[in-house]
């Protein structure tokens, strides 16, 4: 019997758990360090270079920890252009990464992602609608609110249409995503048809996905959505673990599945809306980041959810830095860049899933 041949190291469960936790802390620390370095680098690098020492000095000065102010141009570039953009990249990346991890958990399907299943498109319809209709009754939050509504409607729609028997099959999910994206595309097209030139350029920016128009008011506009979503998400980690067993067993273990599902869908819509409202459609971050982390540290959501937020922030900060600098002085659209890197990964994932299941049947 194979039981007797296994190495004794595998018989105890506690050491496994302890080493796993240690590795998680290490991974989180690494991601955090990477994020800090990238953020500082991103604040300094660009058409107008600001040396790292100056960035640190100005940061210290503004926070009252010593340091010194820079000259007027440098100070203005740093505080009015670079930093809001860095902060926005962190917020959007964290929202997308976290939304991806949550969505995969609630669909019980590792291929679910806001971009892939069309939720980003739905949120974009809301945002574009807000622009074209000139809605402004909620001030700077109008676009976010519309994006939230659009994202919410879409995620509910996809959820309802792609599930059967408590499970979501890969094919159904992807096909539903295609249908929803097509419909959302048509709606956006309709809005474009009725839009004037200024609105059209604004809408184009949406569809490509970019952080180029980052300002502090924009940061403030998404801050509540993103922070609320990110703060609430980890509370669902253990229940998401149980949900991996399927709905019935999760319920047998005391999870109120219906309530959990509604709450998580709201959180996903909130996070996606936060991201889409300021950056347009930036896809695949929510797919790639949780996947890489799952490979590195297993599928437990207690690490995966905060880890994906952190990882998403790292990826988007790096991505935005690349988008600004690779083709300087021109700027690549961020969404195009993430799709260029993310699509092949998605393709590989599809192949692997198919091989594992032995076909799509």
């Amino acid at each position, binding site marked *: 019997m*194979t*039981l*007797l041949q*296994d190495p004794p190291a*595998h*018989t*105890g*469960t*506690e050491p*496994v*758990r302890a080493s796993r936790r240690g590795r998680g802390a290490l991974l989180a620390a690494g991601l955090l360090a990477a994020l800090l370095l990238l953020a500082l680098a991103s604040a300094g690098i660009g058409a107008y270079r600001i040396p790292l020492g100056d960035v640190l000095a100005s940061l210290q000065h503004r926070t009252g920890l010593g340091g010194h102010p820079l000259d007027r141009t440098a100070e203005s570039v740093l505080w009015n252009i670079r930093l809001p953009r860095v902060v926005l990249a962190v917020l959007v990346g964290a929202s997308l990464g976290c939304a991806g991890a949550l969505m995969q*958990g609630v669909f*019980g*399907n*590792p291929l679910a992602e806001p971009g892939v299943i069309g939720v980003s498109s739905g949120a974009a319809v809301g945002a574009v609608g807000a622009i074209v209709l000139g809605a402004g009754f909620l001030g700077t939050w109008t676009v976010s609110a519309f994006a939230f509504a659009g994202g919410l409607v879409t995620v509910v729609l996809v959820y309802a249409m792609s599930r059967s028997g408590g499970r979501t099959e890969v094919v159904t999910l992807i096909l539903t995503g295609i249908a929803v994206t097509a419909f959302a595309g048509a709606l956006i097209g309709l809005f474009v048809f009725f839009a004037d030139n200024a609105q059209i350029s604004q809408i184009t920016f949406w569809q490509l996905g970019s952080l180029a128009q980052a300002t502090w008011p924009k940061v403030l506009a998404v801050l509540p959505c993103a922070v609320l979503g990110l703060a609430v998400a980890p509370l669902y980690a*253990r*229940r998401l*673990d*149980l*949900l*991996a*067993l*399927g709905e*019935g*067993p999760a*319920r*047998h*273990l*005391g*999870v*109120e*599945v219906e309530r959990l599902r509604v709450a998580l869908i709201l959180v996903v819509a909130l996070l996606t809306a936060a991201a889409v409202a300021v950056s347009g459609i930036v896809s695949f971050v929510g797919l790639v980041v949780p996947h890489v982390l*799952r490979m590195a540290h*297993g*599928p*437990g959501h207690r690490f995966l959810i905060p880890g994906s937020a952190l990882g998403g922030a790292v990826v988007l900060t790096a991505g935005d830095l690349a988008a600004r600098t690779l083709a300087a002085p021109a700027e690549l659209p961020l969404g195009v860049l993430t799709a260029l890197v993310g699509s092949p990964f998605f393709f590989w994932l599809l192949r692997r899933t198919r091989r594992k299941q032995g076909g799509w049947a």
Partner: protein
Amino acid sequence: MIGVFGRRTRELPEAVPHGGLAAEADGVRVLRGRRAVLDGASVGVRAGEVLALVGPNGAGKSTLLAALAGDLAPAAGSVRIGGRAAGEWSAPELALRRAVLPQTAELSFPFPVAEVVRMGRAPWAGTVREAEDAAAVAEAMAATEVAGFAARPFSALSGGERARVALARVLAQRTGLLLLDEPTAALDLRHQELVLRICRERAAAGDAVVVVLHDLGLAAAYADRVGVVHGGTVAAAGPPAEVFGAELLGRVYRQPVEVFPHPRTGVPLVVPDRRTTGADIPSKHPA
């Protein structure tokens, strides 16, 4: 520590005294679409006994088990768990009182085996019995012989290994009522016996165990009572020696059988009567 299910305090269940009714279905009617899958099914399970549910495919065994688990709202009749109507318990309260092994064990993400078994402890998080977690998990894994691959991902296991891990998770939950849907289906001879010995041990420790079985020999050897489910109702219930008659089983399964006592133990043995095909026995299935 804050429990998974918030700060709300839950009353810990009191053990049902030996011989007391742990769960009971009374005249339960369950509809799937327009068809009644169960109609007037009644069965009870007492603390300290193993009740086996047997019957042909599609007879309603799993549905009856699900009803006893409080998963279904019956269209008629009632289900009581721990002396209270099943519908009056919340999901977290029920999770402290009954554990359910589903027919198939699935997992969306490749959790390691030890993590899967530990999930069985989730209902107790935030209660005093959280202190038992490590012991309950270790005991369940040892009993089901899965400790040898504790660190392997669930997705890398064979069907039989998965089934045992799922059972370990259910045992780790340490509830007074165990509902097992075909726990032996994917298992080899040795592990089938192992699982039913575990059922007996749990019953001896005062738990109520309901187990859906296809193997009538296993049911006869290990169950205190068997319920023969047929056409959405419990056709007969009682000790195996009384219930397992050739006439009843032949009619229910539409396959003639011979029943005779084991020469040494006296446990009834059920063997298909292979001289006839059973084609001449009319179907009593309510279409």
